[in-house]
């Protein structure tokens, strides 16, 4: 049953989740903040009660502190409901966080781990770009400066440098977990394909980022890497020309790698992660093979 799309699964057990998916006031017990309409605040303190206290306070010439506290407590709730009324964002939150997960263990967090590694790379990368100079004459010097002189520069660059390795490591673990669980099968084949594209793009990030410090190691490693691309039959030399921006390794090569590294590929990765997550939410996750079908009812009782 887990292999069916969500819409088909729902028809088996109509009481299972229609209640909370369709309207917030249904039988499912969800926080009062998320309820819509005037019944939201419950019986204890409505709006009328708060206004009455405020008028009374004028006459007595002093502030009613407990009433103010209640009003203050209302502020985040009303802010959230203001936002909810206009965006319907709680539906997204429910789809993301309150979806059913059919049996899982810690290995199911690897995908999120890769995503957070990517976010860490994105954030540290943005701040490294504030100090980095992508010119042939300035790249090495600016890297040295941001590493040795800038406050916390060593830490931020270190996070970016080692984080890249961590991200690729986690990516392979995530891929292996998906493979061994069998989560690439129908109807999730497309998500596997998107994941493979994300793997290739992440490796391309590693390749293009390696050049940027522009020391001897990164220079010659990139020369070798570009020439490995050139060794591909027929199209290889053209690919190498594209990467170098010409037939020789020159000034355009570094700025090209920089643009690919910080603009082109991160945009593609961000878009594909969104597609990847959308398919995870639409299709749900796969139960591990050792979770038996008979246990499913017991598991669904535990949920929420």
């Amino acid at each position, binding site marked *: 049953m887990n292999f069916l799309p969500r819409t088909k699964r729902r028809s088996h057990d109509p009481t299972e989740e229609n209640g909370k998916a369709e309207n917030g006031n249904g039988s499912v017990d969800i926080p009062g903040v998320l309820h819509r309409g005037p019944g939201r605040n419950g019986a204890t303190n409505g709006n009328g009660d708060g206004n009455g206290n405020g008028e009374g306070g004028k006459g007595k010439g002093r502030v009613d502190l407990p009433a103010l506290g209640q009003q203050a407590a209302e502020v985040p709730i009303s802010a959230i409901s203001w936002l909810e009324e206009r965006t319907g964002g709680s539906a997204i939150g429910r789809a993301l966080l309150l979806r059913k997960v059919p049996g899982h263990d810690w290995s199911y967090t690897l995908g999120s781990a890769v995503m957070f590694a990517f976010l860490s790379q994105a954030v540290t990368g943005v701040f490294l770009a504030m100090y980095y100079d992508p010119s*042939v004459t300035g790249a090495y010097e600016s890297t040295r400066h941001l590493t040795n002189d800038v406050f916390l520069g060593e830490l931020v660059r270190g996070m970016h440098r080692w984080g890249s390795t961590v991200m690729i490591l986690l990516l392979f673990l995530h891929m292996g977990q998906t493979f061994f669980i069998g989560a690439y099968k129908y109807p999730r084949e497309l998500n596997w394909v998107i994941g493979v594209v994300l793997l290739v793009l992440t490796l391309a990030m590693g390749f293009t980022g390696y050049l940027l410090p522009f020391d001897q190691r990164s220079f010659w490693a990139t020369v070798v890497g570009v020439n490995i691309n050139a060794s591909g039959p027929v199209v290889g030399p053209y690919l190498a*020309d594209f990467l170098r921006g010409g*037939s020789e390794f*020159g000034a355009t090569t570094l700025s090209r790698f920089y643009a690919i590294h910080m603009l082109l590929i991160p945009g593609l990765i961000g878009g594909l992660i969104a597609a990847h997550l959308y398919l995870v939410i639409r299709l749900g996750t796969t139960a591990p093979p050792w979770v038996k079908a008979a246990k499913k009812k017991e598991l669904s009782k535990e949920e929420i």
Partner: protein
Amino acid sequence: MATPRKGKRKSPYLKDRHTPAAYEGETVTRRSLFTGGAMAAGGIASAAFGLPALGFALGPIFEDDTPGTFLDVGPEADFNTATYVPKVITIVPRGTGEAGKTTVYVRRSDPARDRDKLGQPYIVLTTRCAHLGCPVRYVQASERFICPCHGGVYEFDGKVSGGPPVRPLDRFETKVEAGRVSVGPRFSVNSKLERHSVRDPSNHLDGLWQYLYPPRPST
């Protein structure tokens, strides 16, 4: 609104015939015309920025950027036929600093030893290994060029002696004017020391393999 004729004629343009303002006898409904028009406009607008950007990024592939200039490396007295003398030349002049320079090995051609038909008065070899582009080093004791990366070894005239390189070391055109030697464009050679246009390292120039790496517009 005219009553539509059902089942008489089927045209892909007429699936909107029940919509308001559709009338009898028209070949393309207003709705499908506007849908097609909006899509075409979007396509033209996307192509208007997409194609120039693509051409901008891919342009260097189709543009010959090899410099045709000759660079002076010193008087004839600096060089002999017995050994190679390293000289530094700038191959990428524009804004590349140290990264645009490269070392070349220069030796006077010896008619008794060099039987190639390349016709260069001086033999100038690149330091770029024909395997993957690492810098090779000349060792006089063994009269060999040795690459530090993956163990490529070349003979005195640049032919492959061992290791992974697929062809001899590239050479440069040379000329002598008023007693001074100058170095011109680079070219590649196959195992018989026959001249070809510049190829990337790892590109074969012998046997059937050479047909997988045809000459390309950028060199």
